[in-house]
């Protein structure tokens, strides 16, 4: 037991580990906030599609040998979010088919580009860490750390400010529009924020596992709590606890950060589902 704590204490001596913990916690917090809305608006598929777009964008950033990949990935993902939402509202092209096309296309082209223009000798390692996160959160540059912190705080701030409007638009879009709330505008805002969250979360869990970070805490909270406010707060708390636990376990047990966090989230979901059943 002492060995575990010694290892933790030794790891926490490094500033980059402390940064990673702070950034990871913030990312987990903001990804969970919008999870409730995404699940309820049946928008989860957009989150999934966008995470694959982010992978394609990351591949482009890599072959361009950018020292700071985040801004480019951020811009490309936000543009895709706006486009996907547009097609989603167009009744002639089925929204989910469009999302599937874009997401699989981005995944394939990203991998193709990385193969055609290899930037390092360890291609499969690069691909794997982009998809599953590996330890990229430990290798964030100083700029990326501050950018992540600033964006996370911005996301949380926007959520609090628009909380009541997000609730109204999520619960009943037609009623909101009829009473003069700019529902399409808020849908756009939500899509753009989700794009930001995905790019942030890509550092933590990798692009394939992002949806889990967004959806699991919300679904867990919905098993037990019955008001929008309590579900939102519970999702945020669950997400932060799971992320911190996951990161600490990953450090001690030398497991990949992303999949460990998701595994902890799955465990949390199962216990909440059980608690919900018992509560009746």
């Amino acid at each position, binding site marked *: 037991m002492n060995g575990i704590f010694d290892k933790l204490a030794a790891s926490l001596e490094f500033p980059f580990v402390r940064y990673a913990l702070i950034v990871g916690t913030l990312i987990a917090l903001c990804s969970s906030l919008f999870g409730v809305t995404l699940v*309820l*608006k*049946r928008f989860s598929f957009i989150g999934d599609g966008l995470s694959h777009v982010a992978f394609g964008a990351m591949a482009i950033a890599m072959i361009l040998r950018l020292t700071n990949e985040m801004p480019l990935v951020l811009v490309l993902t936000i543009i895709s979010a706006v486009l996907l939402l547009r097609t989603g509202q167009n009744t002639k092209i089925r929204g989910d088919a469009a999302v599937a096309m874009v997401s699989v296309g981005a995944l394939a082209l990203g991998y193709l580009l990385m193969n055609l223009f290899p930037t390092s000798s360890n291609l499969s390692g690069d691909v794997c860490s982009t998809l599953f996160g590996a330890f990229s959160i430990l290798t964030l540059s100083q700029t990326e750390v501050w950018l992540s912190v600033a964006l996370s705080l911005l996301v949380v701030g926007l959520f609090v400010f628009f909380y*009541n409007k997000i609730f109204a638009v999520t*619960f009943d879009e*037609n009623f909101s529009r009829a009473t003069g709330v700019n529902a399409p505008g808020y849908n756009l805002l939500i899509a753009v924020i989700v794009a930001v969250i995905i790019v942030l979360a890509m550092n933590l869990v990798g692009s394939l596992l992002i949806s889990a970070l967004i959806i699991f805490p919300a679904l867990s909270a919905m098993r037990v709590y019955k008001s929008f406010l309590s579900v939102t707060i519970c999702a945020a708390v669950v997400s932060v606890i799971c992320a911190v636990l996951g990161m600490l376990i990953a450090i001690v047990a030398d497991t990949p950060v992303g999949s460990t966090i998701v595994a902890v989230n799955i465990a949390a979901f199962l216990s909440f589902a059980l608690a919900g059943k018992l509560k009746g």
Partner: protein
Amino acid sequence: MSLLICENASLGYEGRPIVQNLSFTVEEGDYLCVVGENGSGKSTLMKTILGLTPPLKGSIKTGDGLKANEIGYLPQQTPVQRDFPATVREIVRSGCQNRMGLKPFYSKEDKARAEENIRRMGLEELAGRCYRELSGGQQQRVLLARALCATGRLLLLDEPVAGLDPKVTAELYQLIADLNRKDGITIIMISHDLNAALAYASKVLHVGHHLFFGSKEAYLDSEALSGLNREVTA
């Protein structure tokens, strides 16, 4: 002056008209029932009144100081709402959104308004309960309370009794009639339940092949009704 004026409007989607040359007015205190066969354009009319779809031709305007966003709307339930984690109070308060602008949080007056409408709909006991655990009739009363937060003057009800059992249906009709008679709230109700609709309405708008707009009494001896009856029995 009229609360709602519709002049020579053509309604439809993507340039294809469903209803043409529609004209009617709604006065303060009216109880207007909109009837017609399925697909005759009742829902399109409702969306146009709410400003969700623009009319293809002509106009539907609010008058007498009523703003376009002050129409209280009782929509049909959506699948999303059936598993939505929200309390009755949270939902009723969201009806106050139309007076908030960019203001992020509800004021004391907004909250008081919500409580008043919760009481008015007899929902005090249920205010903290989860919406998805309520019965169909209770859910409709919650949405009615929300609509009342958005307006004190004009309610637009879209098939308010769909899926309710006869006893609850009668209660809900009585509640709506009370809002109209005691509180002077103008009602526009879309319904295919002709008998009940005619029991309470003061005016009827029939959309479909035969357009009709006038008092309930005039409607009862009109062409449109016999046309509808023929189609129902056919």
